[in-house]
């Protein structure tokens, strides 16, 4: 089975988004399945966003603070 999940991530500008940048700078690698929405803080996350993400067809939603 070759299932490539579609994952939507919401990353905090100061934390996870920054960590993701550092991961790039260090040339780490990770699976290319996630798409990223940058927010200034995870406090911005509304339950509606998560539900909408699934409605849009996400197989998983990751919120990174």
């Amino acid at each position, binding site marked *: 089975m070759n299932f490539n999940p579609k994952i939507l991530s919401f990353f905090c*500008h100061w934390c996870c*988004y920054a960590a993701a940048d550092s991961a*790039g700078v260090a*040339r*780490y*690698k990770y699976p290319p399945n996630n798409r990223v929405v940058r927010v*200034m803080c995870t406090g911005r996350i509304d339950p509606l966003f998560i539900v909408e993400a699934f409605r*849009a067809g996400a197989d998983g939603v990751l919120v990174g603070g």
Partner: protein
Amino acid sequence: MEAGRSPNIEIITLAELKELSGKAGHFKAKLFIKPRYVDPQKCTACGLCTTYCPREVIDEYNEGLVYTKAARIDYPQAIPTTYYLDAKACLRMQHESCQLCANVCGPNAIVFDQLPEEREIEVGAVVLTLGFGRIPQEVLEKYGYGKYPDVMTSMEIERMTCASGPTEGEIIRPSDFTHPQRIAFLQCIGSRDVTCDNGYCSSVCCMYAMKEASVVKEHLPEAQIDLFFMDIRTQGKGFDEAFNRAVEKYGFGIIYARVPKIDQVGRKLALTYVTEDGKSHREFYDMVVLSVGLDAPKDAENLASILGIELNHYGFAQTRTSSPLETNVPGIFVAGAFQGPKDIPESVVQAQGVAARCSELLAEVRGEEAILKEFPPEDEELEALEPRVGVFVCHCGVNIASVVDVEDVTRYAANLPGVVHAEDVLYSCSQDALNDLVKKIKEHRLNRVVIAACSPRTHEPLFQETLKEAGLNPALIEMANIRDQCSWVHYFDPQAATAKAKDQVRMAVAKALRLKPLETQKVKVTPSALVIGGGAAGLQAALSIAEQGYEVHLVERERELGGNLRRVTGLLSGEDPQKILETLIKQVESHKRIRVYKETTVENISGYVGNFTSTLRSQAGSEIVNHGVVIIATGGKEHRPALWGLGEEDKILTQLDLEAELAGKASKIARARSIVMIQCVGSRGQDLKYCSKLCCQQAVKNALRLKKRYPKKDVYVLYGNMRTYGFSEDAYREAREAGVIFLRFTPQKRPELIKKGKSLYVKHYDALLGEDLLIPADVLVLSVGIAPGDNEELSKIIKAPLTSDGFFLEAHVKLMPVELAVDGVYVCGLAHGPKPLDETLAQARAAAAKATIPLAKGYVEVAPIVSRVDQQKCIGCGICADLCPYGAIQMIKVGKRKKAETITASCKGCGICASHCPVFAIEMGGFTDEAILAQIEAFGDFAEKESQEEAEKAA
């Protein structure tokens, strides 16, 4: 490289200083400016001149590995982005024969008859950042360089590993263009070598060799790489860890030997050397890389005579420990490698420090010559049009384009709804690309811009500036991160990376369509600083800020100022540390703009850059102070581990204890016949993981002091790697010559303490003899390293992270070495990491420079990411006001009803208010519900499309 964009920096290239007169505060300088033969106003950097220039010359920028043309630019992102003609090579100028470039140049920018120019400028201060020079060719020739093509320099490898370099990142042997299988890196070429008059250590080669070896290994996974060291000098913050990780990951061979000679045998290079166990080896390699050191800059002597500054005996600027940034001439300062070999972070720190130093000198004329940058008014008509999105997809050289199919992404973007223009760009952040962006905005009437490139965290401000220049509101840009979070991390799957890039671009376009112009707010700054910690770093930082003209609150926990420096009684330079400290304290305590709080701690800090409020607690009670910035200079502490019987016997001392002895009667020493020093006690893999950087210098210093006072006594220093980097290598050599015995141990066989009756011995495994030695230790001196202070609590108060070792984590290791992740908070001294006094003092000034910037400006700009309440929708429930972590929402009365209102300056844009608003009455600037939902929906387009495709396939 923002220097090209500041209206207050005038770049004068191809220029040399001829004369300097006047004095500190007011100099007159005469410059000699060579002709460029290209008019920078007209040149569009199209590169046609280079294409058509028939004259090939060796490309120095690429270390002579390839050819370039007489009409050229060194590299595409060069500033100024103007081509130039190399007069020495140009056929027209040498032989009056050709003028192809002038013929093809569209804007007629070529001026063959341009003449050299003299220019006189008046300045208040002079900063010398000459950098470093090259080790002479003769030194390299001793190792067969120039004779054997496969002996290469580290700079040549650097260009070769560069993906946009001459070989496009391929590592090949110049002799036969094959991939080398076995590579040797030789350290200390032109460094630590008195035979070429460079007795000093170049400080950076160990680390860069490891970097290059790692990159080479990434390119050639099969290659076996050996590195030949005398000592591994990776003393910088976090360097040991990076080094060890690289050795483990790539399986490098580490050999302690200095290879005296290389010869070619057949197609291979033979290295003959002797290892520590006395055995002789002869090994064959396909390629040898010489880790070439840093020489004094070539023109230093000439400049020194023009300026009247002193150079040290190696030709670098002469400075003192107490004033590492000053030459002997007042008003002439120095920073970077010209002050002594150093790496990028150290250079940046000194550069920032020197800025503070100039700012102190010229405080009263600050702003008099500065030009304010003005932007054209916003084109409101354009902004009001239906969104017209322009998408710019960046290659970032090969950083993105080698993984992501940039052209494909661009084609894809062109067809997205709302997009009226899409193109790919080689380096979207280069000056000419930015100019081009302005042009394209006007040409295509773009009112929304999507840049698919690197991270908005680093580059959005740059593009926002460009939008402003084009008359657009800076909020009308969205970036798609297709480098840091795509090409760099998904290089193993270009197809998936390209798909991801397309998705991110589509999502960015969807968001861009919903972006609205936002107003940037300016917030006033309280013009004073809080400096926490009254040691050398805190004193110097406080003094610098005060001298620059701003109020300082200096808080010290102890009863006395001075911190760790109080315990240091000697310096390698011969200066008296106690005098340095005394002077600093006197200046600080008598300064009218500094208020000192002793026996006081910081209980709480609230607020944000420009407007902090802190609670200071002392026995007398607590006091509230307002200030615009914070400097953390809380220091570190001597690490006193429960190792080697420290504290059990009075014959066992730390280096600092020894300094106290040496400053006093030294009765313990006087009785001893043999004194043994042990390095890295508790450091580098024992209870502290890291290297404390200064212990080796300290040990050498104290060993020398002992030998001078008691020439007959035996002094031993047992070490892992002797890290007397820079000019302190001289002292190491002097100590050996004075009879101090240095013995190396390995991490596997660290020395041990043996007690026999009342006598102490140190057991040391001697590699040469192949057996254990028992060294009598009448006094045992431990180099114990530096542990972080109590940083955790402060880190929580200030909300700035620490490294895993417990020191404060800078915002960027190289480019922002004194700034923390929290705006308006800076760090210096041992709170940042272990370092010797001169580095601490320079860093304190660097922190002072950075901290003074907002104070001098008088305001900070608040990014327009703040929340806004739609008072029509607001039902006045007050949930947002209660939940806001920054107290940035207040409830006001509008008519008869309560409504929420944002206090813009306090708002951090976190959005808790918006996500908890029952009626969606709060919008976040740049992150509206509408925009985020549009991004989510755009994400779904992909999902739908793909599942449809899958369904079709299945059918």
